[in-house]
């Protein structure tokens, strides 16, 4: 028994070894060749700058002087940990992410389910929800400034019409981040909406027929069938949304410049201000490295949660 299996095993091993020996070089070269175009850009515009950023963060680098400047050691990081303006900017980024992610996951889900039910003229709703997403942030900022403008804005006009004073969308420090969340939800909802619509088309029809035979109504189908079947889409949408929200910059910069009194300035604007207005590139580099680490940690935590969720399924 054992004698007869041994050669067979050896043979199998030999063939695998042979296969790897004959196929590995060619396959690898091909792979590398395919990676080159992307790799060149990746190295030049992602890995390169990242390494340069870390190097800069240890120097008193300036925007207006050549070279790296004097060596700072850990001074930039030490200063950063005591700089409350940076940490409040970091908090604004995180608060924005916490507040903007739930509506940007739940609203598209809701609208996608509703629109998916519509039989005639569905194209119109798909278009209507997706259109704002194709506008550039500068246009969004202009449109919403017209809406928010106190006194002359459209929203103010509406509030005045019903005889209630309008909230200080642009001037109340407690409201500023929420003003931006509203803009962002309106603007980017369409992308998640399309992802959900695609997810909905993937759910097999027969599941609905089967559940209908079992006596499930519309509500029950939605709760017990549609939403669970969209689980993977929801995970994807949430991850993409968190990353997008952590990168918040353009809307805030264009609409509020981080004001009033820095109440909405996100981390990236702090980095931009420090590097390009204060011209302290070294210090700003240290800050962007910290932000990078934070995003990395958030991504890893999220990945770990997903892994556990998938193992649980």
């Amino acid at each position, binding site marked *: 028994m054992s004698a007869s299996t041994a050669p067979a095993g050896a043979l199998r091993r030999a063939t695998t070894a042979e296969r790897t020996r004959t196929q590995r070089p060619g396959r690898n070269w091909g792979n590398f*060749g395919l990676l*080159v175009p992307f790799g*060149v850009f990746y190295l030049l515009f992602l890995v390169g700058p990242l390494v340069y950023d870390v190097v800069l963060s240890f120097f008193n680098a300036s925007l207006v002087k050549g070279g790296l*400047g004097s060596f700072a050691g850990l001074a930039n990081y030490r200063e950063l940990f005591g700089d409350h303006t940076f940490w409040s900017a970091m908090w604004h980024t995180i608060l924005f992410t916490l507040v903007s992610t739930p509506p940007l996951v739940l609203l598209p889900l809701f609208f996608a389910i509703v629109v998916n039910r519509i039989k005639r003229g569905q194209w119109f709703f798909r278009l209507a929800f997706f259109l704002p997403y194709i506008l550039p942030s500068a246009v969004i900022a202009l449109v919403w400034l017209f809406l928010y*403008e*106190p006194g002359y804005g459209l929203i103010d006009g509406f509030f005045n019409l019903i005889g209630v004073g309008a909230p200080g969308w642009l*001037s109340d420090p407690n409201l500023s981040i929420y003003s931006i969340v509203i803009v962002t939800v309106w603007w980017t909802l369409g992308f998640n909406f399309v992802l959900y619509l695609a997810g909905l088309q993937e759910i097999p029809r027969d599941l609905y027929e089967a559940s209908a035979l079992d006596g499930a109504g519309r509500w029950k189908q939605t709760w017990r069938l549609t939403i669970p079947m969209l689980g993977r889409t929801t995970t994807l949408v949430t991850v993409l949304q968190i990353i997008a929200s952590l990168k918040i910059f353009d809307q805030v910069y264009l609409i509020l410049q981080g004001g*009033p009194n820095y109440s909405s300035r996100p981390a990236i604007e702090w980095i931009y201000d420090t590097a390009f207005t*204060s*011209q302290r590139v070294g210090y700003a580099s240290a800050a962007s490295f910290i932000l990078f680490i934070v995003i990395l940690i958030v991504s890893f935590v999220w990945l770990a949660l997903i892994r556990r969720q998938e193992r649980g399924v």
Partner: protein
Amino acid sequence: MSAQQHRGARLSTGSAALLNRRAFLAGAAVLGASLATAGCAGTYDIGAGFSGNSGGDNRSTLVYWNLLSGGDGTHMEAMEAVYTKEHPEVDLQSTILAWGAPYYTKLSLAIQSGSPPDVAIMHLSRIHQYGPPDMLTPISLDLLAEHGMEPKDFTPLAFSKAHYNGQLLAIPLDTHPFVQYYNTKVCHKAGLLDSSGQLPAITSAAAMLDALRKLKKIGATPVVCDQINDPATPWRLFYTLYSQAGGQVLADNGNRVVLDEALALRVLTFIHQLATEGLMNADVDAGGGTAVFQAGDAGLYWEGEWNVTVFQAANMSFSMQPFPALFGRAAAQADSHTFILPKRQSADPEKVSMVLTMVRTLLGQSLTWAEGGHIPAWLPVRDSAAYQKLKPQSNYESVANYAVYDPPAWYSGSGSDMENYLGEPLGSLMLGSMSPQATYDQMRGSLDTLSRETVPV
């Protein structure tokens, strides 16, 4: 048989596609690499390709950068047209860039990378950021005289402020102060005008409160002064009043903070009172402030003089005057547009001469510039009858003599960190949402931080 044929066909199309893809990828890689190397080695050429002007050394071109948009941009274009008509041999390439910090960032980087414009507009308050790192070409008085410009031809204050370490680094074009606009109809209705239809000078904070209350009584917005998305305006208001009270903000080129708590609080309390008493509408951005005044809703409007053409075009009844001295001496925050010559590795005397000729021509057109509200720094025009007749622009001409410029520091000046850091809490104060003491504390904290930072210039 047919199945085999099919497979063969599929295989061959597959390899053909693979070949094509390979060729394509190789091409893409080459393109990527060449783009990348071009990006490293030939920024000069690529920059020229994209913008059409990177300060090339072609003798017949003159590259001129400025940050003048709106009415200022239109006036500058008209002045440039005079120059290009007189000098058809010169190809004047004028580039308008976005105002504020982005402009100065681009200018620094252009100088740093060795391909700056030949001449650029710079705010006078900004030369302290460019003088120390040796980024500007000093202009000798002899050279200036050769091109028809003498120190005595300029507003003395602006001309003396254009020096750094005893060297002339900038040629002033104007002085542009923070002023008071008033709606003559509304102010007349409130009984504020004298028999000649002018608003008599208001000479104390109490008198100002009085006048604003009268305006409020007739249902007008007493004064509008914007702060949303615009930290510079709150800073201008504060610095105007604080300077009137005799206060100083910085000393030793920004290494020492001398902001006086008692004096500052007097001014801050006054601004806070305007907000809490409903005497000031600050819940507007720059465009909104202009709109409120233009709509005829407001009695007074506090802003730089550069909006004058907007209201003239709207054909409304208004006038302008120096910002009233509410806290003692006459003072108003101001700045000057100046011409500067960015430093180049190899100075080309011919180019410098071309620039000075252009500057002299533009200065000669100062009356056009003055229409936009700015007080000409070129005295032959400022003292001319034509300018004196230009109303309401010449009403506040005297401010050029006592204007207060931002305190010198590497972090101060137009659109700078200091204006932003101080303007943000001041903006909240103008809404009444921040107390005078809290505003002072935040301003002080920001200044302490800025003054201690590692100097990047």
